[in-house]
């Protein structure tokens, strides 16, 4: 009985297996050659792994939902959606890594290998059905991310990595403590088991339960940069290479939200007690992110605070806990994936050429690279929520879900924040179009970057104009997800 079940589980996890093998191949391929050839071989292995994983993910789509690996992971529509998101993030970031000048050429193999490891971790996070699995997958993502941040090996990057590591270790410890409390109270580690055991828990342990849930929330809040656990974000983004910051701004946020959804579902009756606190933190997160972003001069710090603000919008969907809210989160995550990574890809192109991360580097970009400037404008306007771009649709649904759940004040907070956010997004547009360029010459981005920007631009505009089928798919996923 054990062997067929294991084989069946491995079949479900074929995409993760392929990515893991790809990670090893990428790291091993690099030393077999010298110079640029090493990077090419690693990139080849990475692309092979990504394409095979995408194919495998497509194949396993039809497999029955349920628990696999003795209940460690669960296969369902929600997990499937987030696996695709994770794969999309990694693929786009790989395009940026191979053409970023922040990434030293000698380390491309390691970067790509670690990125694939992050991919495996993100996918596992989204499918975790067991506290141990949740913890392990978070650690896989975290440890790979620490290494990715530290690989540049200059003072700023080392500082960022150390900060990230210390904060991250603390958050992991806190979360682990919360999990151990849960285990102590119930003797259960699997999420369905916990759900059953918590129902029979007597009232005397309500305090301990609330503490455990708060601690778990704190650990995940760190991953998704939720206030008050956001402090690491700007420093780490500033120190990390642009593509790594791009990955951090989307991948762990999406997977962290997926895990939060799973916890909220499994720990359901007790989780409701966190509702008011979560709603307040939602508003604080978006407000802090957007207000502080206004005064940033470094584009990576600006995008870091913008990420915090965007996470705040996403948390609206989590706070309202309705099917509509769930659908809104999914739509916004898809939008966020494309618009944010698109913006980061444009930033990579500009920073590559100017070696300057201040907003001044964008001056007059519309004259030096008209297409790039136009697309960055599209991404920024989408982030600001201007129709008919995809970001608008996501925001529309998120605010709508708040009103539907009679939490009008969450929608009002979101709207006020959107107006604040316009300031710093338009400020970049102003630099590109209204000011004269500081340097001469045409800016030509490398082809992988142009590909990444093109794909993101096409998705942001195309899916914004014709979101019908995307919405139908995501609505089905939301309907299939129990709250």
């Amino acid at each position: 009985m054990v062997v067929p079940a294991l084989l069946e589980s491995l079949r479900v996890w074929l995409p993760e297996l392929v990515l893991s093998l790809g990670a090893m191949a990428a790291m091993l391929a690099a030393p077999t050659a010298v110079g640029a050839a090493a990077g090419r071989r690693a990139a080849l292995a990475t692309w092979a792994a990504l394409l095979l994983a995408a194919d495998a993910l497509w194949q396993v789509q039809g497999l029955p939902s349920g628990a696999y690996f003795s209940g460690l992971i669960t296969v369902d529509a929600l997990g499937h959606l987030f696996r695709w998101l994770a794969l999309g993030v990694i693929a786009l970031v790989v395009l940026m890594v191979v053409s970023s000048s922040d990434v030293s050429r000698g380390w491309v193999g390691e970067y790509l290998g670690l990125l694939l490891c992050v991919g495996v971790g993100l996918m596992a996070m989204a499918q975790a059905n067991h506290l141990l699995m949740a913890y392990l997958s978070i650690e896989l993502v975290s440890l790979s991310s620490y290494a990715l941040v530290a690989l540049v090996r200059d003072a700023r990057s080392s500082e960022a990595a150390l900060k990230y590591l210390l904060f991250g270790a603390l958050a992991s410890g806190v979360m682990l403590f919360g999990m151990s409390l849960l285990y102590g109270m119930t003797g259960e580690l699997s999420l369905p088991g916990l759900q059953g055991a918590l129902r029979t828990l007597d009232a005397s342990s309500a305090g301990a339960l609330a503490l455990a849930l708060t601690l778990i929330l704190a650990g995940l809040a760190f991953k998704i940069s939720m206030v008050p656990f956001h402090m690491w974000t700007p420093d780490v983004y500033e120190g990390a290479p642009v593509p790594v910051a791009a990955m951090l701004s989307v991948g762990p946020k999406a997977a962290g939200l997926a895990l939060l959804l799973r916890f909220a579902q499994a720990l359901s009756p007790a989780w409701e007690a966190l509702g008011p606190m979560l709603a307040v933190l939602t508003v604080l997160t978006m407000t802090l992110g957007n207000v502080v972003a206004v005064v940033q001069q470094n584009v990576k710090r600006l995008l870091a605070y913008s990420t915090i603000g965007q996470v705040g919008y996403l948390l609206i969907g989590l706070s309202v806990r309705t099917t509509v809210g769930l659908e809104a989160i999914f739509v916004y995550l898809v939008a966020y994936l494309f618009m944010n990574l698109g913006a980061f890809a444009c930033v990579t192109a500009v920073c590559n050429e100017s070696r300057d991360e201040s907003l001044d580097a964008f001056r007059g970009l519309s004259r030096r690279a008209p297409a790039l400037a136009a697309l960055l404008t599209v991404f920024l306007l989408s982030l600001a929520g201007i129709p008919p771009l995809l970001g608008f649709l996501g925001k529309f649904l998120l605010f709508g879900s708040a009103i539907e759940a009679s939490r009008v004040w969450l929608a009002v907070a979101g709207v006020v924040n959107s107006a604040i956010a316009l300031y710093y997004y338009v400020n970049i547009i102003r630099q590109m179009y209204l000011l004269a360029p500081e340097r001469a010459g045409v800016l030509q981005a490398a082809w992988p970057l142009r590909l990444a920007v093109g794909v993101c631009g096409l998705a942001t505009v195309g899916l914004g104009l014709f979101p019908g089928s995307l919405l139908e798919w995501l609505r089905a996923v939301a309907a299939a997800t129990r709250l």
Partner: protein
Amino acid sequence: MVLSSLLLVPLLGILAILAAPRHAERLIQRLATLATALTLGLSLGLLAKFDPQLASLQFVERLSWIPPLGVFYHLGVDGLSLPMVVLTTLLSFLACLASWGIPERKKEYFILYLLLELGMVGTFLALDLFLFYVFWEVVLVPMYFLIGIWGGGRREYSAFKFFVYTLAGSLAMLLGILALYVQTHTFDMIQLAAAGPALDPGLQKLLFFAFFLGFAIKVPVFPFHTWLPDAHVDAPTPISVLLAGVLLKMGGYGFFRISYPLFPEGAQWFAGCLATLGMINIVYGAFVAMAQTDFKKLVAYSSVSHMGFVLLGLASLTPEGMNGAMLQMFNHGIITGGMFLLVGVLYDRAHTRELSAFGGLGARVPVYAGLLTFFSLASLGLPGLSGFVSEFLSLIGTFGVWRWQTVVSVLGIVVSAAYMLTVLQRVLLGPLNDKWTQLSDANLRELVTLVPLLLIILGVGLWPLSVLQWQDPSLRALIQHVLAPR
């Protein structure tokens, strides 16, 4: 398909210009002019085929756009939107001719210009609230660039102020749209007009107020008007024409198309406020205009004053007042569009707009002087010209309903006569400043842009029914709908 073609032509124009090489400036401006001319032709064709007897929507197109949300690509025109569509396409064409003088980055300019036209026309055609919001917002982005890149003075500041102000208003409207959708689960304005009046009166008032914020900033209603002088003054001439001529009307049109039909309880509840705000707009705008020394700023503030008559007429809920309000939107677009063109003609030559710098131009540039006199008289409401008709209708319609507001508003007309005549005196009369002895008169291109406006002003002034007949049945139906007992 005739309404879609109004949107398709500017879109094709954009694609054609995108494909044109950057340095082929003459080709680009010809393409843009061709696109705007075609759109104008199509809208005039629409006018010919439109049946003015019907109060209902005509040429309706309805396609499913986002099925999961119930969003439709739903277009149609009636007496409320048709004058606005014609106004938009006409001013877009004339301002496109006036745009030939734009000195740099013509490719980007005309792409954004056509995108602006697309958004404006779409706003007046949309019958789906979601689609309406999309077009409404699409207007903002090109306008930001058009002011920010090609404007003068503090153009960055003005462009940004315009963007933030109107976006803040739009976001209030967005909340209203969402709340309405949660209640009714439709974006269809026709269905909403049937369902909206049945909503709880308290909710109607709240929703009316949310939409009011969005529209009031656009009109602009005092005290939300402070973006207007900055944006109008710093925008390049053709864009000022469209700002004053069309963008302000989007706000007024919103009341007719959305606020009044959807929330009749809210409309009646707010009418007193609206009349008072209209009065403040008229009088305050006129006094501030009188204090201006910059010609363009003076015209900008006169817009605040003139748009007050739209609010006043709206508040009356009488056929005369509503007809006056609607006609005032059309007339103001034509007259003030012409005034901004005239300011631009002078500024192109003299590079100053300070009224005190001029004097005695009447003898030096007689054609220009004639035109300026004509448009100024139209603006101050001389009987026989179009502005008089709409302001008069708006006042008599409101007099029986909001008496003292109407009485105070009449004061605004006196003040507007004072500042307009002062302009004529300072620019055209008195001794000629030596600096302007070489000033040339209006050229052919400028005449081509101004003379059609002049003819329309005269035509509507002498035979107001020419425009009123289009809008009257729809307006009467609207009033009946709003006042229907429940």
